[in-house]
């Protein structure tokens, strides 16, 4: 086992021990706590970058594997490792975590508890993406849901108690359905192990009974579909994001939502190919509804966060469409899309958080002409809006086009409708930009302060830069993704 393999559990352990350390520090030492959180997320970003660079695309299976036997009587082991798909998601999560911690500087009350929960959330999500054991994958997923509730009800805004409860209950309901599905796979293989690699190679040789696959795939697709905001189980998402504090919206829309897609790729497409082929045509139809309904609803909103919330529901439709096509090209596109959309969503929520902190309103009708007092933030927002509407030059364009190429042959009609969604997206995004940043300046916004210092500008600048870099040079990420996706049992 190479030394690099130890880096992967470190991604989870570092923020987790950070959370425990902050818990033990006195609450008054807020500066130290903030610095600690920044350092930890900075280190995890470095580690993630090293892992991505270290990953050997010539042998595209799981690499850098470590295994600690945990509970042999049930076949549970803490096994970690990455393939091309999880590499990309780890990098995404590291970027979003760092920027989420950087924009959390505006949190003033109960600072210590805030950082404990935030670091716990960050650690859990790293845990999900690095776990190669079904038990730990599920445990980390559930652990990621817990801190959301207290974070939203204490530091949230607008109808926060309702939003927090709705979000937590929907996601948990999906999770427990998925748990039944996971346990049924565990018993159906008869291997008495939760080891994902072992289960994967066993199922490749001995596919499970077709009726069983059908039901298990339904449980897993619906269970993880909830967190990926599959229509009609999406309604928690805009309300939850509107209620959540900025960092939670960023991590949830940017990363946590992707766990749903990631789990469907890994577990449904990877382990139950027949079951997937039964349900994916229906998922394609629901995905189109996601795209069009989300875009339509976003158009009618007056709250900035609701617009972005519905936009994210709409965008997840592309990812679901790509999965439903089950072709290597489309699924590679989905993984790239998760990265691009994650960065874009984090950027949008971070900017809205900034604006809300300054103006204390998110009503579009109240805002207007903000480009003048806030040139930097305004420019970033315009970039985010253009990325969101799929303008060439941004990573989102590349990923969407790959998804459409991949899904066109298998699901022509849904793809056609989904492409139409881009037009609608461009409509509401550009209208949003016009109403908030251009037009006549409302006099009360004249003395707003723009992000001026380097540290204030860093999170937004970093996210914009990443969108542009991978928009112009997608090859590096795609080279990571494609060999690993090719190993999945997909249509050829």
């Amino acid at each position, binding site marked *: 086992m190479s030394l690099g393999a130890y880096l992967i559990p470190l991604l989870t352990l570092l923020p987790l021990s950070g959370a425990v350390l902050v818990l033990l520090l006195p609450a008054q030492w807020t500066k130290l706590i903030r610095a600690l959180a920044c350092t930890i997320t900075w280190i995890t970003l470095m580690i993630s970058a090293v892992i991505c660079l270290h990953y050997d695309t010539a042998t595209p299976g799981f690499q850098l594997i470590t295994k600690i036997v*945990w*509970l*042999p*009587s*049930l076949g549970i082991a803490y096994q970690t490792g990455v393939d091309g798909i999880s590499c990309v998601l780890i990098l995404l999560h590291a970027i979003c975590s760092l920027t989420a911690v950087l924009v959390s500087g505006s949190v003033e009350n109960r600072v210590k508890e805030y950082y404990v929960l935030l670091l716990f959330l960050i650690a859990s999500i790293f845990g999900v993406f690095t776990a190669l054991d079904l*038990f730990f994958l599920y*445990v980390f997923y*559930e*652990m990621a*849901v*817990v801190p959301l*509730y*207290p974070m939203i*009800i*204490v530091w949230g805004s607008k109808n926060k*108690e309702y939003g927090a*409860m709705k979000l*937590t*209950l929907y996601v*948990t*309901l999906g999770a*427990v*359905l998925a*748990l*039944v599905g996971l*346990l*049924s796979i*565990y*018993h159906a293989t008869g291997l008495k192990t939760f080891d994902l690699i072992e289960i994967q190679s066993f199922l490749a040789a001995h596919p499970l009974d077709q009726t069983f696959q059908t039901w298990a795939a339904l449980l897993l697709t619906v269970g993880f579909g909830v967190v990926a905001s599959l229509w009609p189980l999406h309604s928690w998402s805009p309300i939850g994001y509107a209620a959540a504090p900025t960092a939670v919206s960023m991590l949830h829309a940017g990363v946590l939502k992707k766990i749903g897609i990631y789990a469907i790729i890994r577990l449904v497409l990877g382990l139950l190919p027949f079951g997937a082929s039964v349900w994916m045509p229906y998922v394609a139809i629901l995905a189109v509804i996601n795209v069009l309904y989300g875009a339509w609803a976003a158009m009618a909103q007056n709250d900035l966060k609701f617009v972005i919330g519905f936009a994210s529901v709409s965008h997840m439709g592309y990812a679901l469409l790509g999965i439903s096509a089950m072709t290597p090209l489309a699924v590679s596109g989905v993984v790239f899309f998760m990265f691009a959309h994650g960065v874009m969503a984090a950027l949008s929520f971070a900017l809205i958080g900034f604006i809300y902190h300054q103006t204390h309103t998110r009503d579009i009708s109240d805002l207007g002409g903000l480009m003048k007092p806030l040139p930097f933030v305004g420019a970033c927002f315009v970039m985010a809006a253009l990325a969101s509407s799929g303008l060439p030059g941004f990573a989102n364009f590349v990923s969407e086009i790959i998804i459409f190429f991949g899904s066109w042959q298998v699901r022509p009609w849904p793809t056609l409708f989904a492409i139409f969604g881009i037009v609608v997206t461009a409509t509401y995004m550009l209208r949003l930009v016009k109403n908030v940043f251009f037009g006549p300046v409302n006099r009360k916004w004249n003395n707003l302060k723009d992000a001026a210092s380097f540290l204030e500008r860093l999170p937004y600048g970093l996210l914009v830069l990443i969108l542009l870099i991978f928009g112009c040079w997608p090859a590096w990420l795609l080279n990571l993704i494609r060999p690993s996706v090719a190993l999945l049992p997909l249509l050829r």
Partner: protein
Amino acid sequence: MTMLSLISRSAETGLIIVVVALFAARLTLPRLKSGVVSKLVITVFALLFLLNMTLWGSKTLLLQDAFRLDHFALFFKGFFLLAGIFIFMIAGHFQDTLAKRIYEFYSLFTLATLGACFLVSANNFLVLFLSIELITFSLYVLTTYWRTQITSIEAGTKYLVVGAFSSAMMLFGISFIYGTTQTINFHDCRSAFTVLSAQPSFTLLHLGLILVLAGIGFKISAFPFQLWAPDVYQGAPTPVTAFLAVVSKSAGFAALMRLVLLATGGWNAVWILMLALIAAATLLYGNLGAIPQLGGNMKRFLAFSGIGHAGYLLMAMICQNAQGYQALIYYLVVYAIATLTIFLGIVLTDPSQSDMKHNMSDFQGLLARSPMLGFSFFVAILSLAGVPPMAGFFGKFLVIQAVIEKGMWLLALIGAVTIAISLYYYLNVIKLIYADQPNDTSSIKIGFGYQLTFICLNLSLIFLGVFQAPLLHLIAKTI
């Protein structure tokens, strides 16, 4: 090991001595400070726990096969003694209001614990019945102990009526079993069970067993015998409620396991269907019933959530294999730790002990008033809700895993969905403690001993949730 050495080291002997000593002290030292008594009793219980553990490994039948000593019995005796220590700590906070009657209060608790210890060692129906009666009779008095409060009297009366009724049913059932098998011994009953299964009198034997199970159903508050629980939990003095929720309930489940393992040759499909329906109804009743209690009384709320937990325990019971029993015992231990944490937290939140009502609103903003109490509630409630990394999650995981292994899909799905339902009301309690503004902003001071206790309880909930292997290994030995 000689019989004398076994008997002298058994928990029962020690507990009888404690009862006698308490009565003697009542007569000779009525003016002893109640705090001293409480500390003495706790120390003796801890010693008895250690003494009990020295017997670990012995496996024998005593007193003409009436009394069975094995890993299972010793494990549960140790469990009851530890739970007893925490219940005395909860009661210790109650001692000033009791003043003079403290000796009787403690000796009744000791008697009830004695009954529970006998129960897990029972090897025939007579000992089973007598030890259940010993628990119940002590609890009749204990529930009415707060005699100036009308609610306590009401609770005691309800518990008496329902308890007497269930005891009568159980005795009636035992008479049927004796009538058909000509024996009260578990082992002989089991052989008769297999022999008689071909004959028509089999139905009478089954009727007897159903009546016995109904009697135990009252103790564990399983549907449809759960109606007493909310009123009694609410009205009884808080330490007594804790005893009902932890010791009485686990004793019932231990007796149920013993009955199935020793006295019957396992259940057939009809029985399993019946019990699966009971488990599902218990789950739904408890978890849906807890929702309207939000904003009401804390103890009543815990009664409903406790009924829900009985549903999960029954789910594990139905599996009838080592996996299921392991899940059941793991769940019981974890449930007991979380419940005791909450009850200890409840009495400490209301130091005046004015009326023992414990309304939900008393807990508003608890975290700001006492970080230790708030954090302990946070951990214990998340554990009850089955959220990782707390131990409650792993208990639920084991139960659902065992049920799926048996192929009972629908039951597993109901169990899974009720987790999400239960999360609704548990999160509301978290909100109450964590985010709401307190009515009374005075901070709560907690003694060093209690702080230490809370740290131990919290750490054990997290430890058992993360490192499940040691406890599971221990439990595997008891089956």
